[in-house]
């Protein structure tokens, strides 16, 4: 159970920087009431943010990722059940992995 002062300082820096991003964006919006154009963009942020997460992962991924993503989306469309979709997609990815 050692606690190195440099490690603690690095952890503190990481924790501070991360909390600044968590709270900072929201507080900036709340304090400076941004122009309507930026407010209108918020409606599009959730979808485009996760597209930006998923698209590069699929672009560099292999068959396992593609089959997994297709099965996840299909199960989600059919059932609207998050647990089933994650389970089904991951199982499909596992099948491809085991076969490959």
């Amino acid at each position, binding site marked *: 159970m*050692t*606690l*190195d002062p*440099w*490690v*603690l*300082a*690095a*952890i503190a*820096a*990481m*924790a501070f*920087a*991360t*909390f*600044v*991003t*968590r*709270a*900072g*964006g*929201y*507080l*900036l*919006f*709340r304090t400076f009431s941004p122009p309507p*154009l930026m407010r*209108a*963009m*918020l409606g*599009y*942020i*959730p*979808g*485009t*943010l*996760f*597209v*930006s*997460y*998923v*698209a*590069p992962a699929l*672009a560099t*991924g292999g068959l*396992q*990722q593609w089959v997994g*993503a297709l099965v*996840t*989306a299909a199960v*989600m*469309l059919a059932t609207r059940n*998050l*647990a089933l*979709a*994650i389970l089904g*997609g*991951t199982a499909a*990815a*596992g099948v491809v992995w085991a076969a490959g």
Partner: protein
Amino acid sequence: MSQGRPRFSRAAILEGARSSLPVQVAVVPFGLVCGVAAQAQGLSLAEATLMSGLVYAGSAQLLALSHWSSPAPVLAAGLASFVVNLRLALMGPVLGPWLDRLRGWRLWASLFVMADQNWALSVTQMQAGRWDAGFLFGSGALMWVVWVASTAAGHVLGATMRPPAGHPLFFAALAVFVAILVVMWRGRRDFVPWLVAAAVSMLFARLLPGTSWYIVLGALAGSGTGVWRDRRREFNA
């Protein structure tokens, strides 16, 4: 309009925790990997647990640990965390209608436990007309517990528990976002913004690897395109 509705009810906190369970399971493999990485870089169990508890951001922790040194890289680790987590600065304002109604510790605690997964679930709740920010806190608080516990477990179990890099367990994290995208799809008007986001994020994922700039730029480009198109349509109509 929203004044009489609960802001932070126990019921919503519990519902957030309950309905985030499938997402929590997908967090575990990453917690294990992060714990293994911390152990491999010589961090003690106390240090690794402290890091997960205070930072609570998987991709930032993994990136910082992959560039660890002795003495610990204070400035580099802090900067890396900031850049990797910039997307969180875009996420907070989206939940404004919920967060604006919170004060004091409820606001700070809700912001502290806001992460990709529970934010996405909360956005879909908000879009469905729910008003109670307790959902964000409940799902996030449970995820914090799962994250800290699984990194500690990874540190203790060490390399014996490490799944190989291509293991399908890691696909579970991606599956969470694919499934949530299905819920976020609002019809044809999302098509072009999503397409632009995909193209821009793929470009910058190549140009600026190891940061989250590609996510931030993809989201801004896609959203900007959507707003620009909507304005032009209004103008022409």
